[in-house]
């Protein structure tokens, strides 16, 4: 399984550390023009610049350490992505769609929640026969939240 697949994790770590190194340089670029002022000893730019140095230094060091580990595990890379990767991406996409609908109030909250819960459960359970059960759970949840946010709390949904 991918979680305990040391080689896959190491490879991913090298990739992400490189990304953080880029983030460090980008932060430095964005922080450079922040004006310093004589009004106070440290300006608004001090902390961003200081932290960009920290990130660059730490990321470079971590990258160096890990790249040296790589040859020992080379040739065995090939972590199988989890069979649930598609599910994860699908649920994420579904959540985004749900947030987008709630934000635009395109559908009543109870309904959009019911649809989201039903669809997400259908994907995860991989069992369409229980669809009515999912729909009832979703409708109940959506209605309960809708009720609470109009009576107990005020949430503009």
């Amino acid at each position: 399984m991918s979680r305990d697949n040391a080689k896959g994790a190491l490879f991913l770590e090298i990739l992400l550390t490189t990304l953080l190194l880029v983030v460090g340089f980008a932060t430095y670029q964005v922080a450079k023009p922040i004006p310093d002022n004589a009004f106070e000893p440290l300006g608004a730019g001090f902390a961003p610049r200081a932290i960009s140095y920290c990130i660059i230094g730490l990321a470079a060091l971590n990258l160096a350490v890990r790249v040296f580990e790589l040859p020992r595990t080379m040739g065995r890379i090939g972590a199988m992505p989890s069979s649930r990767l598609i599910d994860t991406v699908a649920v994420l996409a579904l959540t985004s769609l749900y947030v987008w609908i709630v934000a635009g109030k395109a559908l009543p909250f109870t309904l959009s929640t019911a649809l989201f819960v039903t669809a997400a459960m259908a994907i995860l359970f991989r069992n369409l026969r229980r669809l009515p059960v999912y729909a009832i759970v979703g409708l109940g949840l959506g209605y309960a939240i809708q009720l609470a946010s109009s009576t107990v709390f005020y949430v503009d949904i």
Partner: protein
Amino acid sequence: MEGFLASLIGLFAPKLFFLAVIGTVGGVFVGSIPGLSGTMLISLCLPLTFYMEPVSAVVLLVAIYTGSITGGLISATLMRTPGTVSNVMTTLDAFPLAQKGQAQRALSLGIAASFAGSIFGWLALALLAKPLSEVAIKVGTAELFALVVLAMALISSVSSGSMLKGLLMGAIGILLALPGVDPTTGVSRLTLGAWQLNGGFHILPVLIGIFAVAPILGDILDLDDRSRETQERNTRKFLFNFGDVKRYWGIVTRSSILGTIVGILPGVGGNVASVVAYTSARVTSKKPEAFGKGSEEGIVASESANNASVGGALIPLITLGIPGSVVDVLLIGALMMHDIAPGPMLFITNARVAWTLVTTLLVSSFLMLITMIYATGPISRLISLPKQGILPVILVFCVIGVYATTNRIFDVWMMLGFGIFGLIFERARFPMAPLVVGFVLAPIAEKSLRSGLMATSGDIWMFLSQPLSLGLLFVSAVLFIWPIVKAVHEWTSTSAKET
């Protein structure tokens, strides 16, 4: 004493007692469900408390606080997901122990330690509030800065996995705290032109994204993985006996003292308390190698310290009006909505409210103990419902919870973003606790550093001339440099081997 007794008796009036029970039970349940934190429940209750008597508001909020900080133990043990940030350290040992088939034991120890810590923190609050306020009032900007730096160094060095990665994540956390309008100069920095970021990242999307959305996505990825489903679910029995009292009273006392002291420190709460107590327990333990692999001492240290910090954190709140933890910020907000100023005058102008803060903590500690003993069964069954069914429901709670608190859809998008970030980085074994601590503490550190230097016209000597801040900074420097030295050493020795 009179005020204390009157308040204690008053707490057993039906209405207040009902609120204490609701708050504690609600706190335990909400704290135990990953994705719902006590902080969130308290924020959601703030508008509600505005329509209550001040005393009722205090009872409800303090009860939730006590309940939720303990409730997180259950999901930390059974799901490897800390219910609240304060249970991060507990997860390190409680989950491995549960994997070995000793979930009941882990929970029982955690509950007993939580109760002991809670009572200890309460004792400190009740007895030491006044004398300690005289010490706390002397915490100037230099010492505050040094304390925050030490806390960051500690969290990076105790986080699981490589210390270097811990430091790196801490730095990323600090970076995440920087965007927005700088309060000192009014300059809008690191926002990349997005006005939505002028206020910075709100803490809730960061916390819920990393501690709820990321684990949910991770759980979906691992749905077909049966190896993590081995913990026993029969948690009815309370596996705790007199021998444990004899065995662990030392650790409990030490961790509770540390937890209380850390709680008193401004801005740092249960999370840092458990980290400090955990580290101290590991250093002094006869079996340090067991820590992180299911050590009973680790669970006891972490849980007694985070509960003790609740009482500790209320001390600066009552005596100075300074929040001792993130939750205390919400308590101050609730009090101020009722025209009540927390501070040294609280015992004089609003004695009943002040004493209620003290007595509610005591009563809710007992309520928490009862709830935890009897409710872990139902809660663990709640957790052991098919994940396929629970995960979508929690996702809805995450979305609505963030939106209800910050009133911005932008923050919901940020929450999803941090969820994806947390998922990917955790897969590469980057620790997340340093990131969150860096995020929370960076503004305090930056403000105390800059305000301190403004007051001394840029003279850095003020940080080094006071023994307390000098000592704290020295310890931090050692903690910061050690992982880097270690990494360089590893690197050179590996390359020596290669050639």
